[in-house]
């Protein structure tokens, strides 16, 4: 009889080697595959369980939105403090954009359709004083908070988004309004916004205190350099 072949360890070693090396090529291959199947994926995406998103929270429960009592407070270094109801926020000039959402953990969601308000239109009402050099975004999910410099906050596609893909922002995506800054990783895109405070300069937000970069530029921060 022929000598037995060691296929068992072969299967084990090939699978392990393939898996471990995918730490290098996984994302590149996956994005090529996603691109190749995107016409199909676009059609079936609404039926997929995650639709590409992962929902990350840092506290025990997600904030709930009560339209009757909800307010967005705008304060700090401003001439006029604001306390906007949901309807008042929605009455501000409406902006729309399609942008890609990148998470620092490696996943991305292409072509997200956001609708909301540009910060410039909020500033037109609140009138930041000259010392105001940064914004503090406070989430209703305590203790989540993050900061943008004034310059970053006024990038052309930064917005306070209240709609996603044509529908009011779902609870898990930060209802009723979240910050969207596509140039930066998801952790800067604060969900469940409760207040925006003008301050002199940015400091470390929730994840930055845990070692993440304050300027979370996609592809050139947090150890990435592509």
């Amino acid at each position: 009889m022929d000598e037995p072949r060691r296929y068992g360890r072969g299967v084990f070693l090939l699978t392990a080697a393939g898996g471990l090396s995918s730490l290098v090529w996984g994302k590149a291959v996956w994005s090529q595959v996603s691109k190749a199947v995107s016409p199909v994926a676009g059609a079936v995406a609404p039926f997929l369980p995650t639709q590409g998103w992962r929902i990350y929270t840092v506290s025990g429960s997600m904030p709930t939105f009560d339209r009757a009592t909800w307010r967005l407070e705008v304060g700090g270094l401003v001439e006029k403090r604001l306390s906007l109801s949901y309807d008042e926020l929605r009455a501000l000039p409406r902006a729309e954009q399609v942008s890609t959402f990148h998470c620092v953990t490696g996943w991305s969601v292409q072509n997200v359709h956001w609708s909301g308000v540009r910060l410039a239109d909020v500033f037109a009402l609140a009138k930041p004083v000259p010392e105001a050099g940064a914004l503090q975004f406070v989430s209703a999910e305590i203790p989540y908070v993050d900061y943008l410099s004034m310059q970053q906050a006024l990038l052309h596609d930064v917005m306070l988004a209240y709609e996603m893909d044509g529908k009011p922002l779902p609870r898990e995506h930060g209802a009723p309004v979240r910050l969207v800054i596509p140039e930066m990783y998801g952790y800067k895109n604060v969900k469940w916004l409760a207040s925006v405070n003008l301050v002199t300069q940015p400091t470390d937000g929730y994840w930055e205190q845990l070692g993440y970069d304050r300027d979370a530029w996609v592809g050139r921060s947090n150890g990435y350099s592509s």
Partner: protein
Amino acid sequence: MTRYVRRFSRTERTLHWVNALGFFLLLVTGLILYLPSLEVLVGRRPLIKDVHFWGGVGWISALALVALLGDRRGLLRTAREFDRFDPEDVRWLRRRLPAPQGRFNAGQKVNASLTAAFTLLFLVSGLLLWFGERDTRFRFASTVILHDGLMFAALALLVGHLYLALIHPATRHALRGMTLGSVSEEWAREHHPRWIDSGDRG
């Protein structure tokens, strides 16, 4: 009267069920972390995350402990059985039947090797996710893709395994071997004739 033959030792069965229990705990907690609809339903992400991570650490530790404290020599012999494919196994894989099989058929051997590799990869990618959240040096853009992809691959393997162990009429008798340790000699002679003929009853 039905005669029974011993197919799995106590160590093998303990290892199997510890593995199954750990896998299901991690599958359930992992899905809560992964699927937005479950995340909304359950909430408590930090708690679930801790249960998932420490459950994973406990899973691997328990497997190592069973292997260390149990019948090591027997496990090594079983590992060698998984490793070695003789010409009948190759024929079985090519579906050139009949291809009389030993204690494990070639499909079970492939399943065992894949499961072992998946376990290693789950461990490595899981640790990288955990430490990567805390230290840039451990952060790779592809870790989450590997961990999630493994889940789908392992789930596919599990569905096939459960079908054969619980539903498929010809094979479900094998479950008795993994619970009580023994299977009917008649069934074994049909499915694993070379094992019965070898007289090796563990």
